[in-house]
């Protein structure tokens, strides 16, 4: 970036600045802390200068938006062309209630849907399963069959919106239901746009909603890649997620490292299954967290983009630029929200929104202020969405691309996050790749250590959390919280009873038997899952067939 002569002269200026100015100043006013660190505990220097990025080559390391290595963004005009998709993750109670919330959000100017499923749905249990007791409709909407899915999207034209579904272990089943609903609306598969999360590796690492063992899960995932590349070409077949890894307590560099290591595992699995990298890689997408440390987060997204581009080009010999572009959704950090003084969370979310936008996200969910207490109310969801709109239209940060580029600090931090992430990826490679590293508990342990360290820093006041360990107040003003009524579970069970008595049970049984046979073969399961859901086989029934063939994953507990 700078020639040696220039660097030498800056070096001597820095030395004299230190002597003349800093030492005097320190003698009179010591700095607030001995050591300053980022939110992820990386030491921050007093000042960054061209010395810190002396070796950078503009064309090679940054380049231009829309061009390799995509450090500055994946589209050539970024937000000047089109703003990111404002996509609030929503869903609770029944399909009817969630359908109303979606229509409300679309009316408020939201531009895409994002479906939150309840835990029984995420783990492939019907609402009337014993294990579902107390959980139905709680953290998301309960979907037992195509019937519920029809209601969920009633009056929402699926060729007009794109839909993201946070579903992993049973992603193939929910995707099949989505395709079936579209068919009923007269919308062909080629027109469907959206994303299924479909990232099982991070479930074993951080989020816990797995069903099947890794090998069988990877098969379902590559079945989806293959099926969609032919049948649903605009669908993003996976959203490789660092979000939950970060929520579990990882650092920013760990978030990048473990997410991309999972990405590598998916690419390898797909290539091994006989797919061509440029056929499926353009439909891979990513999902990152946005924490409070604004500048570190911006550097994180830039580092992730550059590193993935290099991995796809150099490691997997991708030829298409689209295969090298890391496109990502962002969600603000739920774990940073506090139950104390919940209104403060609006400010945290604003900072995190800025981080995501300055980092070049393709879509964004902003958390609501009351989420450390319960699911968000309509009021608090609206504020969260408005936060995005204000950043988009009033802050000015969307008018030029990658506005923080060239900042000595940002570039230096981008480089160091990339380096640290690469080191982790090398270690994971040595352990035999991400699935092996997870099996050995390596990734979980690294995250747990970081989480514990963070907690200890908060408790020792090395890290201030406003309203929690400093500036506390007596809380009197109680906010209204969203409640999911017990009747949701009862109604859902009732609906299932009706469904089972009204559908053609012989057809269901026939489809499930075929699915079981195919699960024992090497065939792609998507067409058979689609047949089963179309005959109104329930999610639980389909997953139980697969459980019988595949078995269930048992977590190895590591403390």
């Amino acid at each position, binding site marked *: 970036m700078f020639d040696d002569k220039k660097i030498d002269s800056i070096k001597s200026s820095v030395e004299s600045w230190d002597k003349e100015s800093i030492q005097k100043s320190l003698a009179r006013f010591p700095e607030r802390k001995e050591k300053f660190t980022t939110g992820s505990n990386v030491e921050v220097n007093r000042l960054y200068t061209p010395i810190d990025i002396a070796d950078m080559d503009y064309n090679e390391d940054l380049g231009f938006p829309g061009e390799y290595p995509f450090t500055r963004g994946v589209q050539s005009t970024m937000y000047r062309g089109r703003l990111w998709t404002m996509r609030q993750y929503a869903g609770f109670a029944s399909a009817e209630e969630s359908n109303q919330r979606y229509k409300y959000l679309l009316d408020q100017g939201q531009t895409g849907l994002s479906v939150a499923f309840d835990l029984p749905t995420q783990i492939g249990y019907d609402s009337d399963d014993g*294990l579902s007791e107390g959980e139905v409709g*709680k953290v998301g909407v309960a979907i037992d069959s195509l019937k519920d899915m029809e209601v969920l999207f009633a009056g929402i034209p699926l060729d007009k919106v794109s839909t993201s579904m946070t579903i992993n272990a049973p992603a193939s089943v929910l995707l099949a239901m989505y395709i079936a609903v579209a068919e009923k609306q007269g919308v062909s598969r080629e027109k469907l746009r959206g994303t299924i999360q479909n990232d099982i590796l991070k479930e074993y690492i951080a989020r816990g909603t797995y069903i099947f063992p890794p090998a069988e899960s990877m098969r379902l995932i590559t079945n989806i890649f293959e099926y969609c590349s032919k049948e649903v070409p605009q669908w993003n077949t996976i959203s490789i997620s660092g979000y939950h890894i970060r929520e579990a*307590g990882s650092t920013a560099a760990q978030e990048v490292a473990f997410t991309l290591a999972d990405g590598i595992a998916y690419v390898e699995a797909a290539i091994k299954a006989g797919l061509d990298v440029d056929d499926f890689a353009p439909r891979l997408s990513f999902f990152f967290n946005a924490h409070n440390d604004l500048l570190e987060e911006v550097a994180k997204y830039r580092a992730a983009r550059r590193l993935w581009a290099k991995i796809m080009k150099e490691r997997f010999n991708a030829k298409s630029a689209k295969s090298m572009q890391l496109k990502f959704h962002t969600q603000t950090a739920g774990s940073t929200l506090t139950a104390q003084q919940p209104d403060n969370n609006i400010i945290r979310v604003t900072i995190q929104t800025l981080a995501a936008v300055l980092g070049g996200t393709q879509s964004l969910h902003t958390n609501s202020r009351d989420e*450390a207490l319960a699911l968000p109310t309509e009021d608090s969801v609206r504020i969260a969405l408005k936060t995005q709109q204000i950043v988009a239209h009033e802050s000015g940060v969307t008018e030029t691309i990658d506005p923080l580029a060239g900042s000595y600090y940002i570039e230096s931090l981008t480089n160091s996050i990339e380096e640290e992430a690469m080191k982790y990826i090398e270690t994971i490679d040595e352990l035999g790749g991400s699935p092996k590293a997870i099996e050995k508990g390596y990734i979980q342990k690294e995250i747990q250590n970081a989480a514990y360290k963070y907690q200890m820093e908060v*408790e020792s006041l090395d890290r201030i959390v406003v309203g929690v360990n400093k500036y506390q107040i007596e809380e009197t003003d109680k906010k209204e919280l969203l409640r999911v009524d017990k009747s949701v579970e009862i109604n859902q069970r009732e609906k299932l009873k009706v469904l089972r008595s009204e559908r053609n049970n012989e057809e269901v049984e026939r489809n499930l038997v075929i699915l079981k046979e195919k699960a024992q073969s090497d065939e792609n399961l998507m067409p058979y899952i689609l047949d089963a859901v179309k005959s109104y086989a329930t999610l639980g029934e389909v997953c139980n067939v697969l459980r019988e063939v595949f078995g269930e994953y048992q977590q190895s507990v590591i403390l």
Partner: protein
Amino acid sequence: MDRPIRVLVAKPGLDGHDRGAKVIARSLRDAGMEVIYTGLRQTPEQIVAAAIQEDVDVVAMSILSGAHNHLFPKVVNLLKEEGVDDMLILGGGVIPEDDIPFLIESGIEAVFTPGTSTKDVVDFVTNNLKR
């Protein structure tokens, strides 16, 4: 007290968010206690069986999904049915303040929500043992 305090840290229900449970488990262990962590997706029956088998002094449960009102009291009642009355039963997680009185009444001795310091949990356990 001769032997160290034994604690079962448990995740009832289906949610997989165990960051809080693991941080608490580790800080109890750092405070000199013996900690057994059940892992995810434990039914109330499994938790009670583990608590009895491991002969613990404390059962600490964590839930984020909103199923606490259903699952926490179930564990308390099952322990009662088994004739166990000397275990300290604690709950934690994303739990609205309005639910806490009900949980306390159901026999959960204390409920710790986000923002709780691990020291507070350690102190509470140490000072409220039932044996």
